[in-house]
Structure formats: C-alpha cells, structure tokens
C-alpha cells in the first residue's frame, strides 16, 4: 500500500498512553450518556456544540435552496400567472371557510365564557423550513431553521397544513430539532373526534402508521375515524387532526384491540412546517393581549400566518 512508510518523520513509536487516553474518553462518554439520558442538564453543552454544527447544516442546505431559487427564477410568466390564479381561488375558498370558522369561534368563546372555562383560541403560528432530516432511519427527527432566537421552546407543537407533525425536542439558538409523531419513542395524547374517546397514539418507526395500543376490545372506534389532539399532557393544543384510523382488529383473547392509524400530515414529504405558540402554554391571560399586539409587527415581516384575530379583522 501507498501508506507503508507514512509517519516516520516524527520518529516516535506510537504513544503508550493511547490506552489510557481511550479509557479516559470512554469513561467521559459513558458519563455524558448517562447524564444525557436521565435528564436535560446537558442542554448548554449541546447548544455549544450545535453552534459549530450550524455552518455545516447551512452548507448542506445550500444546494437545495439554490436549486429552489433557480426553479423560482426560471418560472415563466405564464406559470406564475397560473399559480397566482390558483392561489387566489384557494384563498377565496379558505376565506369563505374562515368566515364560518370565525363565527363558530365567537360562539365557542361565548359558550366557554358561560362555562367559565379558560379559552384557548389565541394561537400564533409561524412557518419554519426543514433544514435536514435525521440520518438515522430509526429515529424520526428533523431540523427546522428556527431556534430560541425566534422564541422556539422545548415541547412546542409542530404542524403542517394537514395535521400534527411532531414536537420540538431541542431548541437551539438558530435551529431546532423536532421529533415526529411516527418516532418509536413518541406518544401523543389524542381523542376520537366522533365521540371524544381518549387514548394514546404511539409512533411505530414507519412514516405512514401510528399504533393505538391502549384501547380495550369494546372501545367505540372504527376505521375512518378522525383522531385529534386532546390537549391532555399540555404539549399539544387541543383539536388538531392527527391521524385517521386505518384498521381495527379485535382478538377476543387479547385485552386490547390492535388499532392502527395513518397520520394526517405527510410526515416524510414536508418541506415546511408550522410552529404553534398557544398563548396559554407560555403566558398568563393578561399578558396574552399585550403580547399579541406587540408581536404582530416583527412577525409580519416574515412569511407568517398571523393569529386568529388578525384574520378576522381583514
């Protein structure tokens, strides 16, 4: 081989301290892993190293964004017009729906006020782009281009246009990692939209399947049922679509039915996701209004869907 006489210029035989050094580093690794697995004391360490990884991510993302820029720049006038008219139609339809929605929302708020329940309608949404997807096929984690500088926080819900995508597990300064609901380690409190039956949806490691392992055989659930977030557990705001029940298998001898569901969000196709700030997760009621007003402007500069109030006023 070409490397047979490589390193003799230093004249040193390889150092006897190698084994010692290895043992030291191995011990340090094990310590890190144990601490990291137990709790989140290592967040600052991760963030510090994450800062060095950020340039790498940008480099990785460059060809993709450059390609998209080329596509955008090369779009003909005709295509743009077509897209424009399509988007206009879509906007009209959405606004029509929204009209109905806002009256419903007002009604809902009134009813809740009568029940003296805390209303949960103030939700702020912001678009984030996906920078990369975990290269480990057994962990469904993606990296989005918003971090604590944009007020992203650990545990924040991530959605796309169709439904729940996952939640932020690690908010860095400029980018954050989000775990998908299909990750085998992800449990999501849900309810059946039809009858309010509450249970847990567990990721399976496949993008197009969730398991509902804790439903008894006599549970009222059938294929085609829409599953929405129940809001229990606090991480996710209630009422977002999660999945549609695909199959229900009841085996008489088993205590639980085998129920699988197909996620509503296209988990392996998303390029852009939305982050939700539901005001109650962070702020008290008094702060909500102040906050909603002061945040309108800086957000409006970015591609954003502003909160419900903004849409109503139009």
């Amino acid at each position, binding site marked *: 081989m070409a490397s047979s006489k490589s*390193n003799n210029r230093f004249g040193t035989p390889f150092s006897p301290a*190698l084994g010692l050094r290895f043992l030291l580093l191995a011990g340090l*690794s094990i310590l890190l892993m144990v601490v*990291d697995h137990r709790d989140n004391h290592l967040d600052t360490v991760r963030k510090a190293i994450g800062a060095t990884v950020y340039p790498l*991510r940008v480099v990785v993302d460059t060809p*993709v964004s450059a390609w998209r820029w080329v596509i955008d720049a090369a779009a003909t006038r005709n295509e743009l017009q077509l897209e424009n008219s399509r988007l206009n139609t879509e906007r009209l339809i959405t606004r029509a729906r929204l009209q109905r929605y806002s009256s419903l929302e007002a009604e809902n708020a009134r009813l809740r006020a009568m029940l003296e329940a805390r209303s949960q309608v103030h939700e702020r949404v912001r678009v984030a782009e996906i920078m990369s997807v975990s290269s480990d096929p057994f962990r469904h984690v993606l990296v989005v281009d918003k971090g604590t500088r944009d007020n992203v926080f650990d545990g924040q819900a991530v959605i796309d246009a169709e439904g729940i995508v996952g939640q932020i597990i690690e908010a860095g300064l400029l980018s954050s990692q989000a775990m998908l609901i299909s990750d085998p380690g992800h449990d999501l409190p849900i309810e059946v939209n039809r009858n309010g039956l509450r249970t847990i949806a567990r990721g399976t490691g496949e993008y197009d399947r969730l398991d509902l392992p804790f439903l008894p055989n006599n549970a009222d659930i059938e294929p085609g049922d829409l599953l929405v977030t129940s809001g229990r557990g606090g991480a996710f705001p209630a009422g977002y679509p999660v999945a549609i029940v695909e199959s229900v298998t009841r085996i008489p001898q088993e205590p639980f039915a085998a129920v699988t569901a197909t996620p509503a969000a296209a988990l*392996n196709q998303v390029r852009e996701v939305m982050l939700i700030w539901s005001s109650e997760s962070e702020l008290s009621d008094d702060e909500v209004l102040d906050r909603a007003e002061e945040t309108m402007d800086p957000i409006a500069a970015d591609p954003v869907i502003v909160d419900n109030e903004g849409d109503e006023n139009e």
Partner: protein
Amino acid sequence: MSDARISSHLPIIFSIAVALLLSIAPIPDSAEPFRPTWVLLTLIYWAMTLPDNYSVGSAWIAGLILDVAQGTLLGQHAIGLSLVIYVTVKFHLQLRQFPMMQLSITVFALLALYQFILFWINGVAGVNSESVIYWGPVLTGTLIWPLLNIVFVGIRQRARG
C-alpha cells in the same frame, strides 16, 4: 516548520468536515439505511496512516459533533468512534501491510464493531432498531472503502507536496 505542518493538516481536517457534511446531508428515505458511515471511514484511514496526529482524541470530538448533529444520545457516537479508532491505531502497522482485499475485510469488521456498539447503546437507552437494514451501512461502507482509499491517497500526496 509549524506553518508547514498546519497547512499539511488542513486537507485532512477538511476531509473530516466533508465526511460530517455527507453524514447529515439529506438523501432519499429509501437510501437512508445504506448511507455509509463516512466519518468513521475517514477517521480509520487517517488513524491508520497518521496515528500520531489523528487517533482517539480526534475521533471523540468528531463523535460528539455527530451526536449533536444527529440528535442521538450525547457520547454515543463519540464512544463508538473512539473505540474503533483505538483498535485501528493499535494495529495500524499491520493494517498498512495488508493488501486491499484483506484491508477491506478488516474495515468490514471495524464497521460492524462500530454499528454493534451503537446498536447496543440504543438497546440500553430504549431506542428500537431491530431490523436487518440497520446493518446496511456496514455493507455499503465496505464496498466504498477501496474507492475512498484512492481519494485519500490523493489527498495525502497533495498534502505532502
């Protein structure tokens, strides 16, 4: 002297950075299980040829960066990489004498060892990875090794000249 040494190290550090890039670059889902462990392959070569400069320490740091980049348990890749590089450095004199075929087989064993350590840690930490395709990177890594070797020899000659 020291300037010359720094400049001769730059291409090597650059190659490790490129390996890190390749291990986080987005590729299609179907190809994901067969993504070679670029960082380990790169480190094996440099640990084999320049064990005085690149050994367990460099491997550990690269592993820590990999852990953060991939969102795995902090220290998981670090311990895997440093163990395999420890073995590589320990036997680097023999490895240098091996013909390509034999070297490839050794690399296969090293990659399998690495993947096994990660598998084991995943198991302890409760991350499910019980599937045959988990071992895909071992195969693709071995297959790509001879090619990678040519690239690295080129880098080394340039670094010296």
